[in-house]
């Protein structure tokens, strides 16, 4: 969007109307809901269910565009080979996606749009509507600021919501978003609301304690494949796969067939995979490219630093999930800092 984009404001009731409108337009709406001590993107029908002050969900909203496990199609062996695709997935609207996760979705978009395009991801993505939500707080594991992936964000959403204290500023990020805001008759406001938002973001920036600047990190990491930090960290690493399974930029998956007992029909499934698992790099006859734990740990981190296969598509957006969900308290930013010669 250019500078001249229209701005709107609303209140909590207005956000509720937005959710209801999306639902009546045929979207299945998901938003951050608190359950137990954690947040999850769950189906919602009212803004009351949503925690607008959430920090991070267990799984990123990626799960609705690139599901952890999905049936791709059913097949049948008859005289020939019959395949039946499942019907198109429901159209989803993601309500309340934080900047880091918005950036991660943009990377997934790029990755899955490469040749050959991924029809499953793109079918979901093309129909999806994304409503961003500027963060209201930062915890000790957030480091998007140093990654340039938040808390400011200017792309990757159809609408961006910001709590400016006396209401919610609504910025359209696409024609679809603008149309939606207009159709709901929200009040148009001037640039002073952008200034108020900017002030809040500047305040927020002061709360960041963790950082992992990208500058030169990829080159540095590539030149330090034998650094002791890899082996030392791997001594703690459980190779459980948590880091990559909760990562909003990891896209690697496995594809396999589940055959019925008649041995003539079945389904083809794809499931999130992780380079942290021993079997991931296993080839025929049991050969394995990354048999050692430190090689697997290093591979994942290199990907997040922008080096390995994933490069830019999979590099870190600073959401902090891998740190929060690592049972061994391994911290990607500490590894980066040791590579830089610190700590």
């Amino acid at each position, binding site marked *: 969007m250019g500078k001249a984009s229209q701005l709107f404001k609303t209140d909590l009731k207005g956000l509720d109307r937005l959710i209801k409108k999306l639902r009546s337009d045929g979207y299945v709406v998901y938003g951050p809901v608190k359950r137990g001590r954690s947040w999850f993107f769950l189906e919602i029908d009212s803004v009351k269910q949503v925690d607008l002050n959430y920090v991070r969900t267990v799984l990123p909203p990626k799960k609705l565009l690139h599901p952890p496990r999905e049936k791709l199609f059913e097949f049948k062996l008859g005289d020939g080979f019959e395949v039946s695709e499942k019907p198109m997935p429901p159209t989803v609207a993601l309500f309340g996606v934080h900047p880091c996760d918005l950036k991660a979705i943009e990377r997934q978009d790029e990755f899955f749009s490469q040749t050959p395009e991924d029809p499953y991801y793109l079918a979901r993505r093309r129909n999806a509507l994304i409503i961003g939500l500027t963060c209201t707080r930062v915890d000790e594991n957030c480091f998007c600021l140093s990654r340039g992936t938040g808390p400011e964000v200017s792309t990757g959403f159809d609408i961006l919501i910001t709590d400016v204290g006396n209401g919610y500023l609504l910025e359209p990020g696409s024609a679809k978003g603008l149309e939606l805001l207009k159709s709901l008759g929200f009040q148009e406001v001037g640039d002073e609301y952008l200034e108020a938002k900017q002030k809040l973001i500047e305040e927020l920036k002061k709360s960041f304690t963790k950082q992992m600047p990208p500058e030169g990190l990829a080159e540095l990491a590539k030149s330090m494949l034998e650094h002791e930090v890899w082996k030392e960290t791997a001594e703690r690493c459980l*190779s459980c*796969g*948590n880091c990559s399974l909760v990562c909003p930029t990891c896209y690697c998956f496995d594809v396999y067939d589940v055959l*019925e*007992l*008649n041995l003539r029909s079945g389904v083809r499934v794809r499931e999130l995979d*992780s380079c942290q698992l*021993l*079997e991931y790099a296993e080839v025929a006859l049991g050969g394995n490219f990354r048999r050692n734990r430190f090689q697997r740990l290093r591979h994942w981190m290199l990907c997040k630093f922008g080096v390995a296969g994933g490069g830019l598509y999979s590099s870190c957006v600073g959401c902090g999930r891998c740190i929060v969900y690592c*049972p061994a308290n391994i911290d990607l930013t500490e590894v980066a800092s040791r590579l830089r010669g610190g700590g």
Partner: protein
Amino acid sequence: MKLKVGVFKFTSCSGCQVELIRMNEQLPELLNLVEFKYWAMASSKLEDGPYDLALVEGAISTPECIEEVKAIREKSRVLVALGDCAVTGGVPSIRNWMSQREAETIVYPKPGYIRSTRVYGIDEYVKVDYYLKGCPPRLENILQVFKAVILGVKPRLRQHSVCVECKLYENECLLTTYKQPCMGPVTAAGCGAICPNVGRVCEGCYGPMSDPNVASMVERLREIGLSDDEIVRKFRKYAGMSKPYREVAKL
């Protein structure tokens, strides 16, 4: 030609066979493909081998068992260890950490009649083609082995951590978020994370995952306040005799 199957049992609770009996509506389809030649729990008609596939449940704990399991192996083309007892000795193997006589006295009024050995999984004595981990293994995984043997392919029994399945279901993390002693990070998946799905920690009933970092797991359990004794029991419970756990289980 139907696959000739034998189901055998040694020291165990029979729960793995019960899992197999739970096939219910899948049974007719399975019976199109296989013929149970020997399955004492399901039929009184017991035929001698050879078998295309032998499912062996239970740990080996007496001198007689050793001879029997060797005889079964000789008669079977593919031999599968069905469940933790057959895979590593399972729950019965906890007696390996006390004296033989003490264990016998606890269980039998006149232990003089008892002749037992240390408890081992069946691969201590015979070659095993596939391991169906779990206490009990999930029916889906058992059927997977039937299908694979018929088709002559390797069954897809991934050995990664329970954490993988837990994350696929997006459970709250009991270890990191609640500091509960969940064995998920070192335990082989296959159960579908059934315990974490209902908010209970993984007890480790599928035994060690592929390449578990046991030393680090011990540290993590210490960090959340478990005593060495409690940690030892965690590792002994289902697979204390497995190679990766054996050292910790002896602590």
